[in-house]
């Protein structure tokens, strides 16, 4: 039996105590990352490739933050969710490479 649900007393307590602070930090972080991305585009002075890199990096960090904190993927018992999302990402990664390089060859 998959035992990804055993909730010990201590952990339950930890959950009870978990306050909103961490999530507000995650929110502020997401906010900052979003603003950086928009600012990089709004400024319009930087060269295109560099802007692209900033945008992609900001998006990836933000998604990581949201998955980890808001979707609880950092918590215990989330092995299969992590596998599911990562497998999806793996397939998508292959397809995005295809889209960027091969379609117009």
């Amino acid at each position: 039996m998959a035992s990804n649900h055993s909730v010990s007393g201590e952990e339950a307590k930890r959950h009870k105590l978990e306050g909103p602070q961490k999530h507000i930090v995650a929110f502020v972080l997401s906010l900052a990352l979003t603003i950086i991305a928009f600012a990089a585009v709004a400024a319009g002075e930087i060269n295109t490739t560099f802007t692209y890199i900033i945008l992609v990096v900001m998006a990836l960090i933000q998604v990581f933050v949201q998955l980890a904190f808001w979707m609880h993927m950092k918590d215990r018992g989330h092995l299969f969710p992590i596998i599911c999302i990562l497998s999806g990402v793996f397939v998508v990664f292959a397809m995005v490479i295809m889209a960027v390089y091969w379609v117009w060859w």
Partner: protein
Amino acid sequence: MSAHQHVEGHLPHEPEKATLEGRNKVLGFWIFLGAEVVLFGTLFSAFIALRHQVLDGPHPSHLFELPMVFAATMILLTSSLMSVFAVQAMHRNKMKALIGWLFVTIILGLAFLGLEIYEFNTYVSEGHKMNTSAFSSSFYTLVGFHGAHVAFGVLWISLLIAQLFKKGLTVVTAPKIYLSMIYWHFIDVVWVFIFTVVYLMGKVG
């Protein structure tokens, strides 16, 4: 209406995972989200492959307006935070707070949808229609799929609020609330890629 009125006996600490049905639902939903990752990934791939095929339609750098996209982003981001608070309220067994946060979440969701409809309307009037070019087709399909997910989420959460009033917070309703909140975050995660890949990169050119 007080919170404990609806909770008979002891509701477990993580009511969404208290029963095998609940655990099945949570796991099954994550698997579904894995499939959704691929679904949106494919839409993104198609968009990336076709996004330069503008033809005679308006160019994305003229079409998109950053303030509007920024507003939409903020709305969705905030609603995601609200849904985190909802789950926390649920874990603390606070019905009133839970319903309150859920309510704020769907209000923000509706605001986002309204903004999107307004945006699409503007684009169509500017000559950016479904059949204008490969760029416009893939744009409307990708962003529209996301919008449809938001709309479904709003309907779903509204239905759950109604169920909370009727049935209270139980081991049957708790997994539903939990899943709808995970779903809502997922929509927000997808939006991060949409504003990055579609709007910001479109603006850059």
